[in-house]
């Protein structure tokens, strides 16, 4: 039943651009999907691994910087640049994982925060490479097989395809033995160790997987915005992704997607009608935390179950 619903929801997503008369909503939908991939990647760490990171924007940001830098400054064509951006960023996440996973809990959070701030400072200061706070621009979207991705609709469809891949592969990952192991490591690291699991290695693999999907989101971000500046690496970006995960429901597959929808819609659509939209954003999160501390997806699930008498599922 849930599977059917999922497929139906997904088809609706695909239909959205065809239904919308305005490019604006197509672009908002594209942004939601990019944010959703980013939040899904962070969810691997936060939700399934129990490792709260405040530096996840690093992977999106570095990958976006690399994508644009490799094309506009190093003269690579789009495909090798995108692949190199993902590979290099994933390699970086391996390095950062080794550094950050010396600790868990608060220590882990502080290390990821520090690494994020270092890269933000680097992007800001290393003007000859990153363009400083003026950023990198002059980047065009590619035209693979003669498909013009400059059009919002075709770009949206490509984003849908990448999102579908990300969603399915992440779903497969968390439902695999490894996924069970990761959840086990989150809840009972000692028992898992006693059972013969290499706790540190499980966490590292999750960290790298999160870095990989963050990098994929970064490539899409670069293509979408055709511009990158240090703001993408800022702490607010990492925090926003964390909010998406927590608001939607950490440790659920749909949660980060719902969280991405809520945040992007509040930021980009509601703000057109409400001047004090930042305050509204805050209020919404306070409300979520007050009434559904586990997040929207599990929270709604709980309400639905409560309404039905027990035993009739």
């Amino acid at each position, binding site marked *: 039943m849930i599977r059917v619903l999922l497929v139906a929801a997904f088809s609706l997503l695909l239909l959205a651009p065809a239904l919308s008369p305005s490019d*604006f909503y197509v*672009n*908002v939908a594209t942004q939601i999907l990019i944010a959703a991939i980013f939040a899904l990647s962070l969810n691997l760490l936060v939700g399934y691994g129990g490792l709260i990171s405040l530096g996840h924007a690093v992977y999106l940001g570095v990958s976006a910087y690399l994508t644009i830098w490799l094309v506009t400054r190093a003269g690579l064509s789009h495909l090798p640049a995108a692949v190199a951006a993902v590979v290099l960023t994933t390699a970086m996440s391996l390095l950062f994982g080794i550094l950050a996973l010396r600790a868990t809990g608060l220590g882990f959070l502080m290390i990821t925060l520090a690494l994020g701030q270092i890269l933000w400072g680097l992007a800001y200061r290393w003007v000859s490479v990153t363009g400083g706070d003026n*950023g990198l*621009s002059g980047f065009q979207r590619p035209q693979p097989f003669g498909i013009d991705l400059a059009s919002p609709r075709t770009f949206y469809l490509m984003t849908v395809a990448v999102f579908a891949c990300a969603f399915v592969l992440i779903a497969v990952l968390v439902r695999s033995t490894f996924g069970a192991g990761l959840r086990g490591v989150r809840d009972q690291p000692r028992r898992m160790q006693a059972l013969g699991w290499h706790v540190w290695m499980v966490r590292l693999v999750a960290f790298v997987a999160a870095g990989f999907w963050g990098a994929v989101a970064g490539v899409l971000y670069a293509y979408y*915005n055709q*511009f990158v500046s240090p703001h993408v690496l800022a702490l607010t970006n990492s925090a926003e992704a964390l909010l998406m995960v927590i608001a939607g429901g950490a440790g659920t597959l749909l949660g980060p997607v719902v969280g991405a929808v809520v945040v992007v819609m509040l930021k980009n659509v509601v703000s057109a009608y409400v*001047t004090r939209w930042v305050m509204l954003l805050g209020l919404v999160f306070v409300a979520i935390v007050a009434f559904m501390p586990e997040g929207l997806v599990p929270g709604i699930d709980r309400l639905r179950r409560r309404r039905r008498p027990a035993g009739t599922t």
Partner: protein
Amino acid sequence: MSRHVFGLAVLLAVLPARAAEKEPVRVGFLTVNSGALAAGGRQMGEGLTLYLKEHGNKLAGRSIEVVTLDTAGQPATTRTRTQEAVERYKVHVIIGPLAAFEALAINDYVKQVKVPVISPSAAAEDLTQRSPNPWFVRAVGSSAQPNQPFGEYAAKTLKYKRIATIGDDFAFGHETTAGFQRAFEDSGGKVVQKQWAPLNVADYGSYVAGIKPDVDAIYASFAGANGLRFLRQYAEYGLKVPVLGNMTTVDEGILKNMGDEALGVVSCGWYSAAIDTPANRKFVEAFRAAHSADPGYYSAGAYTAAMFLDLALQKVHGKVEDKDAFMKALRSLDVQDSFRGPMRIDERGNPVLTVYIRKVERKDGRLQNTVVQTYPGVSQFWKYDPKTFLAQPVYSRDNPKASNLEP
């Protein structure tokens, strides 16, 4: 029957024509209502509103519909807002955004969708230099534009030989300081010390303490409220070295919150609320009546942007729909008698304008930037040859190289 059909046909033919005639000019106003830049965003709004109010909300015979969009000072959000303005509200022209990095973030998109942009604030040099955009016109000066004549003024008129600089560590601080340094050193002065303070630094104490005591003056380049905080701490430390500043260090927008510490600061800019001309007195009086404050960088910038829109619309008789003609009119503006003096748009979309050297004095019970000297007809390239100017990399933290630094 046939008569009815005929009547209907006439009606159908007339209706769209009439509708097109009456349709307002839609202006997308990209501003910042939230976050650290919100004060500047509010002042921009005040400048724009005043101009439209003065003209009964009608420019070149067409009413103006302003769609205000909050970019939150974030490049990605600015991009979305611009798309919203273009794709959802179908604006004819954009006034905004506020920050240079926001303008750079939408530069490529603007070229792609070909929508005219009048910048009321963003000063990044390259917007009208190394990555010019045919759909972009700046209503303010480029970052270094007033600072280059100021460098010469400091060396030749004020006879300063050795100067220490301190500025905000971001592109606007870098570009303003670089322009000042280049012209100052070309006129025989020496920049012996350069300090950069992070934008959100809590305390300027260590920077003030680090200033060489034996310099003739210091050059300060701050934006937002940082000038206020720096000058206050500078005075508290009891330093007596004269202070020079870029336009925003003692901008009218924050000057009203300053005290004696600002007295005597000599600065440069493309505007001062104290310019003593009938046109400017009229503008300042109207602005003071509406907001009981002097107009500064952001208000004057947005007011100028609205004026540019007005003049270009008049040139094309209100036909903003003919984008190419409108853009051509905008790019070839030549204003003789504006409140800021004569202005002419150069071939890269930047105005050739009058630069004012100002000195903070107390007059009529408030601090004002009294004009002490004017440099008419200053281009963004100052006295340098545009070709060689553009062949060099954009002004930055270390460009031009400071070869006279003392340890």
